[in-house]
């Protein structure tokens, strides 16, 4: 699961109002090289919750993202490379995603999150 995906996942247990972003518990992660596309990054930037990305990348050991970002920074090659690396190249293979409100744990196995809810959570 790369952080682009993490940035779009939330916990929708019944009654939860604050299910995003999910905290990461990392058991195994890998870094995969991905083709760089400035256009893709510029297109996706408006949809990204920046703080969630920063926090998630820190839990994977990457602290190079600035705390805040705005679209003017998309002109900087240096910024784009860091954005690219955090968003697309850090992969959680094994671990847990944790709901910030309920503490509910969603497992991630072989890179695939399992977001199925139990009967009493819907």
């Amino acid at each position, binding site marked *: 699961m790369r952080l682009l*995906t993490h940035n*779009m996942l939330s916990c929708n247990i019944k009654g939860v109002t604050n299910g995003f972003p999910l905290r990461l518990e990392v058991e195994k992660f890998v870094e995969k090289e991905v*083709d760089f*596309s400035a256009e893709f990054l510029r297109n*996706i930037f408006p949809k990204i919750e920046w703080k969630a990305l920063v926090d998630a990348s820190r839990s994977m050991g990457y602290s190079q993202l600035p705390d805040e970002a705005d679209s003017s920074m998309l002109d900087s090659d240096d910024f784009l490379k860091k954005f690219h690396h955090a968003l697309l190249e850090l992969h959680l293979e094994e671990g847990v995603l944790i709901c910030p409100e309920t503490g509910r744990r969603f497992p991630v196995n*072989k890179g*695939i*999150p399992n*977001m199925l809810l139990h009967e009493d959570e*819907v």
Partner: protein
Amino acid sequence: MNTLFRTTESPFLQYLNQPSTSDRRRRISSLPVRIGLGRSTRTGLAKTTTRMMASSSSAATETVGREVLKKGIADFYDESSGIWEDIWGDHMHHGFYNPDVQASISDHRSAQIRMIEESLSFAGVPEDSLKKPKSIVDVGCGIGGSSRYLARKYGAQCQGITLSPVQAQRAQALAAAQGLADKQVSFQVADALQQPFPDGQFDLVWSMESGEHMPDKKKFVSELARVAAPGATIIMVTWCHRDLSPSEDSLKPEEEKLLNKICDAYYLPAWCSAADYVKLLQSLSLQDIKAADWSQYVAPFWPAVIRSALTWKGLTSLLRSGWKTMKGALAMPLMIEGYQKDLIKFAIITCRKPK
């Protein structure tokens, strides 16, 4: 082709609109629990549910029934995805054919791609670089055929959800093998009735032949609408039963009987009609609602699937795959019967979320 179905009052809608307890007892046959019973108690699904129905309230029964159905769906696809992919490739949906054509096996793959393109065209999804979809959700993504196709077509980011862990893994592996994974597509094990996304995420909400598995059509459609961004397009291509005429309260008993047999084999809950979907979309204030019956354009599909199952490769694969897959294969003539009797309809329903 662009016909808005008459909005007839169907008994299924009563179920959708949370009726009184007595109505729910009467409509108990709509619950996924009951569908597996058919007229006998042969299946494990049936035996479990008979005990459940005897001892619990209808709400608890429904919950258990849902869990049984979800597990059944996941297991069915865990077991049969591989053999399907082996013979038919990575698109697990009907092809779109010119009417009355005898298609050869090599035509089917392009027909499946045509199904995607015709659906996008019917829904009027913009293609220019400013307005085309940038983020897409594939609800009931199978092994990711649509996800990969759409991500490539629009240069967009696509999330796929499926109940089957085996499918999610395979979808991811195929994306990686095709050089897509790391940028554009990702897959999660998740329930379409509780999509794990915040509101308003996606420019294109895609459900290709997954709606028939959803036990709560109202919740299914609500979730599609919830995760759609303002101005987004929602596309559902799904199996429905024929619309009911104004004088009808329900399908005829022999029609229900045929559908029940199909439900049992394919882990489907109660069917609804395209008109029922249209009514649901209207109740959610969605715009530009369009619906069409594409049954005539998919007619060659099931005969072709049966022919592929009867090849040496097909038969040996079936025997190796497991009982659920074999039961599914044996039910294929029932699908043809349903289409021939104008009972089963292959429907496309699309709309837009208001800006």
